[in-house]
């Protein structure tokens, strides 16, 4: 069976509705895994840049405009979230 992206709605709401700083990223550059809260964030810049604390590669970029937000996760191979809220 093939569905369209609407089938992701419930699961994605679970991922993106909460505090993501406790989520565990895996760095695409070096494979290091750690909480999003441990990323090194540099400012001021045209957006927020989160770098891996192990290899300094860029894990995520977040750009806010007056009416939109862009989240680029190309530097992460995975985000892992706990579903028990802890």
């Amino acid at each position: 069976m093939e569905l369209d992206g609407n089938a992701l709605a419930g699961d994605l709401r679970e991922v993106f509705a909460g505090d993501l700083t406790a989520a565990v990223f895996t760095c695409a550059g070096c494979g290091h895994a750690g909480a999003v809260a441990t990323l090194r964030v540099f400012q001021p810049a045209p957006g927020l840049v989160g770098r891996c604390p192990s290899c300094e590669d860029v894990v995520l970029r977040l750009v806010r405009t007056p009416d939109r937000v862009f989240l680029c996760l190309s530097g992460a191979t995975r985000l892992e979230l706990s579903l028990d809220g802890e």
Partner: protein
Amino acid sequence: MGIISRGFGGRRRESSPDLPPGQYLTHDFPVLSAGPTPRIPLDRWQFSIITETGEKHTWNWDEFTALPADEFTVDIHCVTKWSKLGTTWKGVSLDTLMADVESAADYAMAHSFGGYTTNVPVEDLLDGKAWVAYEFDGEPLHPEHGGPARLLIPHLYFWKSAKWVNGLRMMPEDEPGFWEAAGYHMYGDPWSEQRYHGD
């Protein structure tokens, strides 16, 4: 260059004809950075242009600074809305660096020490519109402002003027660089307020 107004500070709205829409004048030189500031020893510095066929042209620091250089005064416009008018630089024109480069590519990706990238149409690099600059205000370019050398494309938003630049890769098709992939505009004309994707 137009008239440079002095004596104003802060975010006060100015009406200089040299100020693109949505910008405010600043007289200091804000430092924006998406990562740690790389410190590149001059004996390890090099600048390369790699064509779409793989041909590579490389200059070390001595070769680069022996090239004919321009001293020029330009206005710069950051996408975070500050503009600084009448900044004075010294650098090598891209016309000089590209003189012996055989390429039919319409786009280039600028690469920097530290991994930063930004995409630029080749026509915006040529005809006296862009430099690799290594002096600001008569002094060697400080690392926090992109030294030893940075790209300078003053007619585009300043994120296109890649700090710590170390090369250009010629590209037949346009590809997004570091900020362009994260929502910023592919071209970045300050006079058209091309800040974000879709502007």
